[in-house]
């Protein structure tokens, strides 16, 4: 093919591409007008843009001068003379500053003080953590309720059953979410010192993973293990939710339970340690 032929073909291609693009744009407007449809909108927009893109690429590759052109690079560093001249001019101020060293120091103090003062408003961004990471909403005698707010009775769960529970009046509280598991039908001792924490086989662990705080949502009944879906830490539900695998380093805190005279489950007290992921002074 001769050069003029090739050029004519390229011109035709570009013209068709731009034409298709224009039609697609009209279609796009029409589709929108008719109420819109996600897939059709996407496709028409793609054709409208793609036609333009294709056209421009053909223009660039076939119709415009290709070169190659050569451009010399500038030398990046300035000449010695220019640098020296600049330094002299800089000296003008610097010399003055050096002679007024004391003023410079005072300026430093003032600027520093202003900087520090400017940081103070950051404090408005959030409350004092206080002991909010160390306490949940569980209290001595809190009624154990499920996600609908219904109290939990001894007969609510079969052996092997699980339920997410909250202290009454604090549904959906992130730090108080607790996993109630019935692992047996008689008292369970998960660890020494927790002899009366799991009446009638009901054990309750904080549902907030000690690794990075995801809800530990899965209970594998056959092996009596809890599994965190986020990074696959698993905890032994029989032995005080001791971590078995994965990145979690600490057991899930256990909530001491009791059964009241009406057969309702209640907490004996709050958790005896901060729930959830670790932080610097957690042990203090």
């Amino acid at each position, binding site marked *: 093919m001769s050069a003029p032929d090739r050029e004519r073909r390229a011109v035709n291609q570009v013209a068709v591409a731009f034409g298709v693009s224009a039609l697609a744009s009209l279609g796009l407007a029409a589709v929108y007008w008719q109420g819109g449809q996600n897939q059709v909108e996407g496709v028409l927009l793609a054709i409208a843009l793609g036609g333009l893109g294709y056209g421009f*690429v053909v223009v660039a590759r076939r119709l415009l001068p290709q070169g190659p052109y050569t451009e010399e690079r500038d030398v990046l560093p300035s000449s010695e003379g220019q640098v020296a001249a600049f330094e002299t001019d800089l000296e003008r101020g610097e010399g003055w500053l050096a002679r007024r060293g004391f003023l410079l120091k005072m300026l430093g103090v003032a600027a520093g003080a202003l900087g520090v003062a400017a940081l103070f408003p950051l404090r408005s961004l959030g409350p004092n953590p206080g002991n909010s990471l160390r306490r949940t909403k569980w209290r001595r005698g809190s009624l154990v309720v499920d996600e609908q707010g219904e109290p939990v009775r001894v007969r609510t769960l079969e052996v092997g059953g699980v339920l997410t529970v909250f202290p009454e009046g604090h549904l959906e509280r992130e730090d108080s979410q607790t996993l109630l598991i019935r692992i047996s039908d008689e008292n369970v001792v998960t660890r020494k010192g927790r002899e009366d924490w799991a009446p009638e086989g009901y054990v309750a662990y904080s549902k907030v993973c000690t690794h990075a705080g995801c809800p530990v949502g899965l209970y594998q009944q056959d092996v009596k293990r809890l599994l965190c879906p986020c990074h*696959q830490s698993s905890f032994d539900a029989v032995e005080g939710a001791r971590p078995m695998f994965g990145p979690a380093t600490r057991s899930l805190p256990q909530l001491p339970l009791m059964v009241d005279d009406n057969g309702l489950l209640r907490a004996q007290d709050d958790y005896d340690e901060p729930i959830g992921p670790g932080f610097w002074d957690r042990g203090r």
Partner: protein
Amino acid sequence: MIIQRVARWIDNRLGASRAARTTLNKVFPDHWSFMLGEVALYCFVILVLTGVYLTFFFTPGTKEVVYHGSYAPLDGVKMSQAYESVLRISFDVRAGLVMRQIHHWAALMFVAAVIAHLMRIFFTGAFRRPREINWMIGVTLLILAIANGFTGYSLPDDQLSGTGLRIAYSVVLSVPVAGVWTAFLIFGGEFPGNEVLTRFFVIHILIIPVAIAVLLGAHLAILVRQKHTQFPGRGRANTNVVGARLWPTFMAKTLGLFFLTFAVLAALGGLAQINPVWIWGPFEPAAVSAGSQPDWYVGWLEGSLRLFPAWETRLFGFEIPNPFYSGVVIPGITFMLLYAWAFLEARVTKDYEEHHLLDRPRDRPVRTSIGVAALTFYVILFAAGGNDVLAARFDISVNLITWVFRIFLLVLPPLTALLTYRLCRELQARDHEKPRPTAVLERTQSGGYVEVEEPAGAPRA
């Protein structure tokens, strides 16, 4: 012509003709890999365009509302204003869903293009003097791109994004000494905190985009000042740039690239569903779904959190929790090394010269092997971020697959480095075997032949 009249009017007031002419004649070398940075730039432009549209309809509120929109399965469900407004954008705002999906796809492609561009710069040695400043700006842009992706991902307040926020909060909490206060100041209190959506919204639509725009401006200004690098080849030297001029050839080419990038994203936004938040449901603190996956560019962090062994440090009653190592130290080292690389390499090779000619990766076997090893490391972390999905797919235990990944993480990078090194050497040897023409004959337009000399010793591109 009108353009000339306008140009003259402007020149009379600004005297811009000379600078404008230099700009028009600016030479751009041609290589496919030079387009990666352009694609990243255009993704950002597309993100801004679609993002502005979305801000008109999005409400960053946590106040609880009851949904009564046109998506029937969630009718009557309690949710935050933010989640409700995303449903509205997806189902009730005309062209809302396609905009939202283009926006999400563009974010995914933005980070991908930035990383591909970074790899190009790394493996060809384009970061060497005088381009160290632009290298560091580039690394900062990568961090900002990831950060803006994460904040944007968090805004719809759906179940997945809530889980991501919960983990981010715990990672901040894990920082020694300042962690608790920092987490409380960022989230406005204990997680979930009522402020975080509003704050992330401001960060996502104002602070980070402006920072990206400013740094991008600097990135490009420095590029114009220093001119492009180029691969060695006939007529190319450390002192010149060979290629097409900005006006009109390069202009047409890059406009074409912009439209094609946008076209691909539009097609994806229309046809490929992304982040269907109506399926994940509104965020509830006590719920989490198995197999939840973050956007791809956070995958390596997710993998790091999953693979890191159950270690923590206790000192004098204080503790450094596990997520600090996997969620702060590992990314911290990653970005530190990236920032420092340009200087580290110059230090080690004692090469402080100006370089405008690019290396072929094979000619720098050590750098190339280190790069490949690092890449292997992050690809394994990325894969490990989906270890539960992989375990379910291949029906093996998560524990086994986690251990396999831990071993891979230590063994594979040195192995791939070694292989790369051998491969580079092999390729180099092959280059030497090939007979090289001592001169090249070129046909001139008039039909005669001239002998064009190749600069001695210059490898061919």
